[in-house]
Structure formats: C-alpha cells, structure tokens
C-alpha cells in the first residue's frame, strides 16, 4: 500500500509541476491564478496521500486548511473595493 501511495503522490506532484509551467507561461494574471488553483488542489491531494503513510495523520488537518482557504486568494484577486468615501 505504501508503494501505491508514494507513487500516486509522485503523480500528483508531477501534475503540480505541470501547473507550475502554466504559471510561468501566463500569459495573463487570470491564467496564473488558475494555475495557482491547480497547485493548491494538487497540494491537497499530495497531503491526503502522504497522510496515510504511518505516523502522518496530522497531514489531513493541513489538507483541510489548504482546502478551506482555497477560495480566499481568488476572491482577493478579483475583489473590487468600494469607491465612495464612506465605504
């Protein structure tokens, strides 16, 4: 089982690596944000796979935090501030 887990984790990290190529290539900021989204999801997948290796249960909590905060960056990227003086 641990072999399957580590090989799968490698596969997911490779997909993260492909996302990295898109983030470098761009061209627009929106494309880069999409790639960051993929990197986040791949990070969650990697952590889940590694969390089943012995003694690593805590990684599931890390994956949970990553998953819960996945939308914050996109919202900060697209959010528009109020223009009026009194907010």
């Amino acid at each position, binding site marked *: 089982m641990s072999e399957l887990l580590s090989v799968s984790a490698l596969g997911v990290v490779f997909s993260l690596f*492909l996302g990295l190529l898109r983030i470098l290539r761009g061209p627009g900021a929106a494309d880069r944000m999409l790639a960051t989204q993929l990197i986040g999801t791949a990070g969650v997948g990697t952590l889940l796979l590694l969390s*089943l290796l012995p003694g690593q249960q805590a990684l599931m909590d890390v994956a949970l935090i990553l998953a819960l905060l996945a939308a914050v960056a996109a919202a900060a990227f697209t959010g528009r501030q109020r223009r009026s003086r009194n907010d």
Partner: protein
Amino acid sequence: MIDVLSALLVLAGVGFYLTGSIGLLRLPDLYSRLHALTKADNLGLGLLVAGLALHSQELLTVLKLLLIWLAVLAASAASAHLIARHARRQETTS
C-alpha cells in the same frame, strides 16, 4: 477486494489530475483552461478521496476526507466563477 478497488480509484484520481494539468497547459485560452481545471478539482480529488475513504477504517477520517473534498469543490467552483467574471469584465472594459 476492497484494497484493489481503492487502489484503482486512487490511480484513476491521479490520472484525472494529470489530464487536468495537461489540459491547463495545452488548451488555447483562459475559458477552456477553466474547463480543464475542474477535471482535476472535482474528479481527480473526488476519486482520490473515494479511494482513500474505502481504505481507511475510522468514520472520523472518512468524514474529514468528505469535508475536504466538499470544501475544494465549493472553493474551485466559486473561484472559477470569480476569475471568469473578472476576465470577462476586463475584456468588456478595455
């Protein structure tokens, strides 16, 4: 039997991850790339979570896995929407 099924699900999940990222890399414009990204988020992580949930024995772990999947699903849907809308607005204003 369950082990085999779980392994198959995990491997299928990894397959969808790779498909999604290749799509993100190869597809020509932002909107079609958005479509590729959802393969990794929904199906890749979904199958992975299903496989790992089959493998795990504790109910708490299964629930946590489910919560993680739902969180990623909702977050990816929301952020795909936000990014697409943002890109659309940029197009119309400029």
